[in-house]
């Protein structure tokens, strides 16, 4: 059976039904191209022969309309093809567009019914139809920008001609997905349907109504007197958009996201010329992204690896899906309260326990403040808030934890306290309950020694603030069972988080990786590098926050205390503690300069009231009294990134992280590793394995053994085996 079926009904309406064989969703790839070309050619013949009332496009798959481009196919394309191959690719793009253009200019009414997600290529097909009906609640949009691409089957042009430049740029460059009712408001959909049957009925009714339109049914842009909504680029009203828009794109993306540049330019360029010429323009920009490394990075991480992660690639296959009904949280500080907030919102009963009722109540108030903010933004209703709040039981009594299927401990990073909490909690729980320690660095296997059920003990490292940060790093201790791991994994997903799974070692994965870039920032500061350059280098690498600003946010005082705690912990274990640039600088910042962090009035930065933050001048006096050290800017940038990539490879070598996707996604979503690189491992692939090794060796010679190349990377560089 083919991809597309054509079925003519009694009213002369030809249904064009997408049903890609062997797939649960329809995708736009070579198979589609062939089928669509043939189907539209056949339709042309049928229309010419007469007796066609109209055409109705729909999916043959239940609740699935069309998912978009075939990413796997795109990832296999050569990044640097010869000129004639590029020409072939461009011709291929134009060939994909062609049938859609024919369809919308046949003259007969063309309607589409979207019974499920219509994203990317699928929505581009819908945009080429005259009348769009969607089942209520489905999602649609052009999300290509999220994976470094742009629509290439006419989506940019049609969206621009339909909604105008401003709206098109916003929707496409942010990759916005819209619910059907929102899409209706925007004019992207003409009608909503209650279910598939209603959808078919509405679409066909519209076709019959419009079958005899004089001059044939046309798209707005093919109709006489068409004016682009909002006007073209020369219009006075659009001068702000075209003058400041490009700068805003660059600032928002640090000029590191070629897709956003291309989308903005393509929209404006499309608006300057006629519709068919605009299609050529779009094809050229699209091709430039198909041949772009950043797009490959993002497709790899945010599509292929993310999908695998969400499907549970790192979850043991055996255990059944777990759905938590009652969750215990020990410690009602910002972290514990944040997790409680999320859980309550997801329908989980929460016991929020702290040492006093007062503390526990304070944690509950944190949730209330969060929901109130949601109300003021129109995202939460009073009823919903009441429902959520009713699920949180503040408590100072371990006995209240009875019946919790899983308990997350979020107390101070002190082994003794954690051990006591573990034992007291377990005493109140059923034997099957899971105990999860939310620690950012303490080894899980060692913490599990306090447990009487080490197989039920696991690490769940949430990131702060827990209600916002999308990642949970799950740490499997030596004795952690598959059942326990599966439960922790499922709970993370239930909370709306993306879980990655790593094995136990000091600092696990994310903490040890980000530690390296923070150390490099400190080392360079101590070496007398201009701190503004250190921060700019992080920005220009694509990091959301610089290594110095990051400490200001956490506060130097907290970082200092954490360091002291780690030191005490190491010494208690009988280990030797060595100070380092970061600890030395924190010591001076806190104890000598009283620069204790942003919340304490200032850290590395000053925060003048009503003014812009700027570097504290005392840093220069302290670390570069005789002028800044001259260091190549590329070195400053690479020290911040290479240190992390190399540490990630070491973690893989040691078996801490086994799945590349966990490393990539974890680094981006957990610790702000530059997203356009596709993550801490993909960044190495993108740089080129051999080139990366050579550059690391250069950095090692100049800046020390933190840049030494792990054997695993040497081997990969030699064999050419990418981190995939």
């Amino acid at each position, binding site marked *: 059976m083919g991809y597309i079926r054509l079925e003519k009904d009694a009213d002369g309406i030809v249904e064009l039904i997408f049903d890609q064989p062997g797939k649960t969703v329809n995708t736009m790839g070579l198979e589609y191209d062939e089928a669509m070309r043939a189907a539209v050619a056949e339709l042309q013949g049928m229309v010419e022969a007469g007796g066609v009332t109209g055409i109705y496009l729909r999916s043959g798959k239940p609740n699935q309309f069309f998912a978009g481009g075939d990413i796997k196919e795109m990832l296999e394309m050569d990044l640097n093809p010869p000129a004639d191959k590029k020409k072939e690719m461009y011709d291929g793009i134009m060939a994909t567009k062609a049938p859609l253009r024919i369809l919308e200019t046949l003259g007969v009414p063309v309607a589409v019914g979207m019974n499920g997600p219509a994203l990317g290529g699928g929505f581009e097909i819908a945009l080429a139809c005259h009348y769009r009906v969607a089942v209520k609640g489905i999602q649609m949009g052009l999300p290509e920008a999220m994976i470094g691409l742009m629509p290439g089957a006419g989506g940019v042009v049609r969206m621009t001609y339909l909604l105008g430049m401003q709206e098109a740029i916003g929707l496409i460059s942010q990759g916005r997905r819209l619910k059907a009712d929102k899409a209706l408001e925007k004019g992207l959909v003409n009608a909503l349907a209650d279910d598939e049957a209603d959808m078919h009925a509405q679409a066909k009714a519209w076709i019959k109504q419009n079958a005899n339109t004089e001059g044939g049914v046309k798209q707005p842009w093919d109709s006489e007197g068409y004016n682009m909504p909002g006007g073209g680029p020369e219009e006075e009203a659009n001068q702000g958009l*075209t*003058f*400041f828009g490009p700068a805003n794109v*660059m600032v928002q993306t*640090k000029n590191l996201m070629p897709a956003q540049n291309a989308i903005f*330019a393509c929209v404006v360029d499309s608006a300057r010329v006629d519709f068919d010429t605009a299609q050529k323009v779009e094809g050229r920009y699209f091709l430039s992204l198909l041949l772009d490394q950043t797009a490959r990075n993002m497709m790899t991480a945010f599509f292929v690896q993310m999908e695998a992660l969400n499907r549970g690639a790192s979850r043991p296959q055996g255990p059944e899906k777990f759905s938590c009904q009652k969750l215990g949280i020990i410690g009602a500080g910002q972290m514990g309260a944040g997790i409680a907030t999320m859980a309550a919102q997801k329908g989980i009963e929460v016991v929020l326990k702290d040492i006093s009722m007062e503390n526990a109540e304070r944690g509950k108030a944190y949730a209330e403040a969060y929901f109130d903010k949601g109300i003021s933004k129109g995202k939460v209703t009073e009823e919903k808030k009441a429902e959520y709040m009713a699920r949180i039981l503040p408590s100072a009594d371990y006995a209240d934890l009875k019946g919790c299927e899983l308990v997350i401990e979020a107390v101070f990073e002190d082994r003794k306290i954690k051990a006591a909490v573990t034992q007291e909690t377990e005493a109140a729980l059923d034997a099957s309950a899971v105990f999860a320690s939310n620690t950012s660095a303490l080894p899980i296997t060692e913490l599990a020694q306090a447990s009487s059920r080490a197989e039920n003990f696991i690490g769940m490292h949430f990131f702060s603030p827990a209600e916002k940060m999308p990642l949970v790093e799950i740490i499997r201790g030596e004795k952690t069972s598959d059942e326990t791991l599966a439960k922790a994994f499922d709970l993370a997903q239930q909370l709306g988080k993306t879980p990655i799974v790593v094995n136990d070692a000091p600092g696990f994965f994310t903490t040890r990786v980000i530690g390296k870039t923070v150390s490099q920032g400190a080392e360079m500061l101590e070496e007398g590098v201009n701190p503004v*350059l250190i921060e700019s280098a992080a*920005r220009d690498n694509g990091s959301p926050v610089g290594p110095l600003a990051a400490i200001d946010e956490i506060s130097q005082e907290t970082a200092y205390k954490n360091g002291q705690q780690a030191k005490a912990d190491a010494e208690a274990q009988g280990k030797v503690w060595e100070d380092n640039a970061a600890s030395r600088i924190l010591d001076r910042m806190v104890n000598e300069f009283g620069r204790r962090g942003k919340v304490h009035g200032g850290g590395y930065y000053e925060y003048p009231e009503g003014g812009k933050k*700027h570097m504290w001048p005392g840093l220069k006096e302290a670390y570069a009294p005789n002028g800044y050290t001259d260091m190549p*800017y590329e070195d400053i940038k690479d020290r911040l990134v290479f240190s992390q990539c190399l540490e990630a490879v070491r973690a893989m070598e040691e078996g801490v992280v086994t799945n590349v996707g966990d490393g990539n996604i974890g680094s981006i979503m957990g610790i702000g590793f530059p997203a356009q690189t596709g993550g801490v491992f993909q960044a190495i692939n993108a740089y080129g394995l051999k080139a990366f090794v050579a550059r690391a060796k250069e950095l090692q010679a100049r800046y020390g053994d933190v840049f030494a190349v792990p054997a695993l990377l040497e081997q990969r560089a030699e064999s050419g085996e990418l981190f995939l």
Partner: protein
Amino acid sequence: MADAFIYDAIRTPRGKGKQGGSLYEVKPIDLVTNLLEEMKERLNLDTSKVEDLILACGEPVKEQGQNIAKAALVYSSWDDITTGAQLHRFCAGGLDAVNMAAAKVASGFEELVAAGGVESMSRLGIGASGGATGDPWVAMKSYFISQGLGADMIATMDGISREEVDAYAARSQHRAAQARDNGYFKSIVPVRDMNGVVVLEQDELIRAETTAEGLAKLKPAFQMFNDFGHGGVAKLKYPELENIECVHTAGNSSGIVDGAGLVLIGSEAAGKEQGLTPRARIVSCALVGSEPTIMLDGPVPATQKALKKAGLSVDDIDLFELNEAFASVVLRYQNRLGIPDEKINVNGGAIAMGHPIGATGAMILGTLLDELERRDLKRGLVTLCAGGGIGIATIIERV
């Protein structure tokens, strides 16, 4: 290479470049023909001997569009044999027209060439002709930002304070007022209407009463550009730049005005043939491209290049005329080249009198020559920064 001589350099007064300005009612072409007729008359010029007219214009569109030089020649009483061309080199155009005329003469290809520029900013404001850098893709690839913010970048990077730029601006006003009141601007030719009635006789933007304290009250003109994304783009290009201090205002940046300038360049023989006395000789010319995001950094390298070509040093130049696009441009220039206040822009500049984009270069060449003659000095250097990162400089020497 033959000598290229300046036989005359005249200009219109500068009218406020907005509705209500005295020259707003005057078409750009009439600004040009006023000067063409005046030059023909005062030199008793046989215009059939003038081979070409090169006119610069910053917004060559609509009534300033196509080739305003040839249109003005046809419309004037000049001989039809004189041809004309329109030139665009942003703010450097007026001086570049002169340099090109000098190059033609020095090469021997032509003997007598007129050059200058025109700009009616009241009728065709900045941006009237659009421009390739306004294209989003081009802007992103070029790190395009507002020019004024480039001036603020210079101030930030050089540690030039708001007080310093305001003090400089106040001095420009005082110097210009004094020069005007004492009749130093010999090259000004009044603009007349079709009946010969004078429309404007003197520069009308000068504010003699300006004080640095008064200027300090003005709002930074380019803060909005900084805050709306251009500051961020600048920082992407200059990682050492933490924040940009926006110090430039309408009071310490060049004014928006209408006006035209015209210069006659010729060989020795061509002058003799018509009984003209050369006022000065073009010693050397230079053009350079400079970093385009800051954009305004060209005068220093252009000056160095022109000096090198002439085998001269900074000390050999008696007076400097640097277009006051923005105060920081002049202050950086002085700092970098070690030029004292007494030798630069001695009769004020564009902050006081205004900067009619395409015309300015030709205008300030005349201003400099007037002052060299008045002081009986020998050598002067004219220089301007221009859009996209262009620097231009010309050294002249009285004969």
